[in-house]
């Protein structure tokens, strides 16, 4: 394959690219809360929640080859754990995150045991059942003392504030400031923009944590055994990989991580119920799947890009149910259904991608970017130090593409 230029991995040009990509990512992340308003920030939070869920699903499906159409239930575990602890027991939301992780991890491990005996379509059905049962269980009348039944649980600001969302400062009864030992970086939280920014940074934190866990895992010995299971279960077993234990572990981690964006939705939505948070119904599980596949399964950045694209398209086409809102050239194609066409657009995108790029948008990048710039791997035997850890973290797509 011809390419316009050739650079060496770890060389100056490669580092320049990595640093540039890092700067772009940082700039985007900073731009949203500082230069846009509450509406855009809310949309960005949606994208971040979706990223977190799709990334955790990616560990299980993309890397380990175990399908799950039940991840909405794990997200729901997070949302309800936070909802219950905050509104019933007066906890600070901060502390609900680890609890949600642990509970969801446990549920994931339990699900993994039947799951490790079944494969493919059967596993899809079992996990689908989980997604279908979850909303039923949490809205069950007999559990309403805990889950609030059909009307769900409120997690209003006042309660959040009363229980002290501030670190190192006494709670003020009203959520006014986010203080870290006397420093309040976000200003007056009674302003909607500032409050949205507050939830936004929490969501960013969750996504960064999930990313770092995924990255650490897939680059480790366990990560190799995960891909081994995905690619060839028999060969993995004769390599000494304990299939049941590894699957249980990955199911647990994946479920636990997926709960974290659930916690975020619980506090930012101001209440927890299957109607209020669509992501914890089976629709959510399918959305995670679509986002992961469109972005690129089995790559660290796939779900991130997939979620960003998904939310962007959904946002743009959100108003396209009425003719006036549809851009002129597109009017013949949309509007007749009288519902926002984002589902349809993604359905078509999914079908097209399955044919031209089964590895999603990241796959397209990996396939075609070498035509422009080809990155030669390091000479054999030199592992090389990683000078700037953050840059490496954020821009690994490039080097990763050469090895995987």
């Amino acid at each position, binding site marked *: 394959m011809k390419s316009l230029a050739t650079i060496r991995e770890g060389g100056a040009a490669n580092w320049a690219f990595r640093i540039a990509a890092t700067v772009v990512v940082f700039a985007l992340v900073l731009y949203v809360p500082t230069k846009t308003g509450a509406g855009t920030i809310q949309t960005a939070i949606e994208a971040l929640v979706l990223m977190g869920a799709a990334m955790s699903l990616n560990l299980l499906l993309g890397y380990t080859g175990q399908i799950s159409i039940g991840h909405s239930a794990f997200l729901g575990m997070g949302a309800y754990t936070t909802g219950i602890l905050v509104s019933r027991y007066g906890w600070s939301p901060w502390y609900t995150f680890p609890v949600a992780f642990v509970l969801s991890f446990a549920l994931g491990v339990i699900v993994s045991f039947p799951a490790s005996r079944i494969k493919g379509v059967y596993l899809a059905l079992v996990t689908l059942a989980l997604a279908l049962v979850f909303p039923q269980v949490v809205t069950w009348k007999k559990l309403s003392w805990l889950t609030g039944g059909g009307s769900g649980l409120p997690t209003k600001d006042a309660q959040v504030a009363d229980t002290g969302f501030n670190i190192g400062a006494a709670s003020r009864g009203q959520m006014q400031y986010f203080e870290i030992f006397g420093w309040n970086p976000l200003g007056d939280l009674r302003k909607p923009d500032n409050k949205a920014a507050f939830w936004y940074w929490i969501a960013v934190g969750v996504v960064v944590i999930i990313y770092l866990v995924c990255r650490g895992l897939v680059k480790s*010995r366990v990560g190799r055994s995960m*891909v081994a299971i995905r690619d060839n279960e028999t*060969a993995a077993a*004769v*390599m*000494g990989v304990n299939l049941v234990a590894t699957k249980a572990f990955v199911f647990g981690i994946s479920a636990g991580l997926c709960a974290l964006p659930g916690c975020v939705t619980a506090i930012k939505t101001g209440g927890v119920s299957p109607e209020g948070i669509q992501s914890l119904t089976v629709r959510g599980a399918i959305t995670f799947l679509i986002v992961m596949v469109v972005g690129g399964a089995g790559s660290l950045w796939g779900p991130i890009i997939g979620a960003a694209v998904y939310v962007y398209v959904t946002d743009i086409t959100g108003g396209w149910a009425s003719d006036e809102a549809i851009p002129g050239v597109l009017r013949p194609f949309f509007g007749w259904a009288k519902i926002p066409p984002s589902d349809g657009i993604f359905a078509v995108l999914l079908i097209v991608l399955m044919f031209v790029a089964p590895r999603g948008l990241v796959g397209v990048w990996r396939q075609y970017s070498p035509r422009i710039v080809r990155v030669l791997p390091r000479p054999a035997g030199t592992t090389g130090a990683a000078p700037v850890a953050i840059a490496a973290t954020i821009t690994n797509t490039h080097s990763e593409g050469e090895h995987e």
Partner: protein
Amino acid sequence: MPLLDVKDLKAGYGPVNVLDGMHLHVDQGEFVVMLGANGAGKTTTMRAISGLIPRHGSIVFEGHDIHKASADSIVRSGIAQVPQGRGTFPELSVEDNLLAGAYVRHGGDGVHDDMDKWFAVFPRLAERRAQRAGSLSGGEQQMLAIARALMSRPKLLLCDEPSLGLAPLITQELFAVLERLNRDEGLSVLLVEQNANLAMHIANRVYLLETGQIVASGSAEELGADDAIRKAYLGF
């Protein structure tokens, strides 16, 4: 005492046993070949020894009965299998395939030294170390599968039809490597083959398998000298 001693082995995939009371053994440093027609139960034997399928009877390896042990603990005790077909991990690089082979060693000492050693034995792999395993040719993948199994530092290598789908020249090359490992490193080998001619050439001892039963065993010369066996099983 044999390195591996299998007695009255029964195994299968459901109610019916494919193997019904099989006996075989491999001595320390021996190169044993198992021949048999399609469906005779060769792969099933390998799977049973490796602990991939439920089994009964006694499988003693280095004095320990492993017939109830889990697949991963069997690998840890020193038995590595090269499964039938292209048993590589196509999405992992050649290097990562080898690292996956060292899975039970927990990245301990000498993993990279071993990798270099197998790269020296299989120079074709060394040239392609950063390449996806899925992009290797069939022969290269088979070499990779063998090198990967050796990365766990086994005492006994189970090799299931490594010649499957390979050109005769590549097969010869592969067998030569196995023979050398057996001779120079004292690696014990149990090799399954259909290709009687080539395999018998390097074997210390040969088993003939028919519908889950060992029907004959002996050195290559002994079996070759028996006209009935030669005509029925060896086809020459």
